[in-house]
């Protein structure tokens, strides 16, 4: 029978993570090249937004990933709390920087997209505001983790914070949305759901390719990072010493 917990031990996961990271890294690079080519040369010019809309092909995947990574991170944190596996919390902490990066990219490209389209770098729209709050949540997670010296306590404390955060994310999201509709009849609307229906098929494909490129990139980078974290935390273990001997 396939043993789910075989790879929950850092010693067995370390080599597997190395192989997976290479695989996902190559896949991500290939998809990224295809996706970028499609988004610059194949996808047609938008009849309303001209060439400027092409920033969507990085903006939308980044925004999706920023939300997905937080949920995945919270799932790893929950797994770590339930089964007390060291690896789960390491996975959670290895995902956080990438999640924060994608949140930042989504905000930054959003600003770049917003300036020509709406005439403003930033509007207090529900989506933008909740994305900003998501960035704060990532920063809080990483700040808490780095403030605690004992790695076991750091992992458990930041895991708990991730869980508290993930319960709050929908509450924050809806409260921000209601706040926005109640406060201001915004003259600028972020048409995101509307984009999809009006998008031509090739645009949807490009978006999908870019999304998978970002997804695989996240997996590859998280696995690389978790390898470093494993080596750091398990530095006293005999298998790590044997590995280092081998490398010399």
């Amino acid at each position, binding site marked *: 029978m396939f043993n789910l917990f075989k790879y929950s031990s850092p010693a067995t996961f370390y080599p597997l993570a190395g192989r997976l990271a290479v695989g996902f890294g190559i896949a991500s690079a290939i998809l990224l090249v295809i996706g970028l080519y499609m988004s610059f040369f194949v996808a047609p010019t938008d009849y309303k937004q001209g060439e400027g809309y092409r920033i969507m092909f990085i903006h939308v995947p980044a925004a999706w990933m920023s939300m997905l990574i937080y949920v995945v991170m919270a799932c790893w944190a929950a797994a770590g709390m339930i089964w007390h596996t060291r690896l789960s919390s390491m996975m959670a902490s290895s995902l956080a920087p990438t999640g924060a990066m994608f949140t930042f990219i989504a905000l930054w490209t959003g600003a770049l997209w917003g300036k020509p389209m709406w005439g403003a770098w930033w509007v207090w729209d529900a989506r933008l505001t909740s994305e900003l709050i998501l960035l*704060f*949540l990532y*920063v*809080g997670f990483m700040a*808490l983790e780095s403030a605690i010296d004992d790695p076991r306590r750091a992992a458990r404390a930041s895991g*708990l914070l991730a*869980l508290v955060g993930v319960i709050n994310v929908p509450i*924050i999201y809806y*409260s921000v949305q209601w706040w926005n509709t109640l*406060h201001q009849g915004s003259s600028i609307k972020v048409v995101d759901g509307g984009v999809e229906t009006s998008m031509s098929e090739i645009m949807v494909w490009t978006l999908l390719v870019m999304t998978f490129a970002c997804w695989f990139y996240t997996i590859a980078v998280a696995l690389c990072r978790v390898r470093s974290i494993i080596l750091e935390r398990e530095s006293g273990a005999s298998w790590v010493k044997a590995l280092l001997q081998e490398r010399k």
Partner: protein
Amino acid sequence: MLATLRCMVMRDLTLAMRHRSDVLTTVFFFIIVVSLFPLGVGPEAALLKEMAAGVVWVAALLASMLSLTRLFADDYNDGTLEQLLLVPQSLSLIVLGKVLAHWIISGLPLVVMSPLLGLQFGLEGDELMMLMVTLLLGTPVLSLLGAIGAALTLGLRGGGVLVSLLVLPLYIPVLIFGAGAVTASAAGMGADGHLSLMGAILLLALVLAPWASAAALRISVE
């Protein structure tokens, strides 16, 4: 169960009464922060009236934040907290007692002071009432959520700054509905929806937050 709760609340209140200046600091911080806004944005009455709810609410968030670090820190430093973790009564209940005491010390004075500050900003009758009601519903949530942050950052370097980083994003829904209720009632739209949502958040926090804080305390103290 109630005896444990009562015992914890009375103990913390007694301790707070021995250091009355700590309690007053929070209240005066609240008043000062609110008073700074007119100096910053100018004395136009119409503008101030529009901002009043938001300003009072943000000041309340900051004030309750300021006193959070003291929630568990003193007990942690003198070893009482370790004893509390060992008692047979449920830790969540003990945390709830401490949070309740913290709210009475730092949240309730803000509720009581708020109409006075509202008057300074030109709010009237109904809006003042609404400001008070929202703070009454909202400040316990601040103490409850803040307890999780305070428990997680117990005994860390720069815990005070860190706790604000962790907790302020979680306060956002309370701020939105609290300030929103006052604005909505001022605009004549009725604030029932806001108040119901605040009540829902309060109940949710009341059930989940003590439990999460207890888990956080166990992580921090082990």
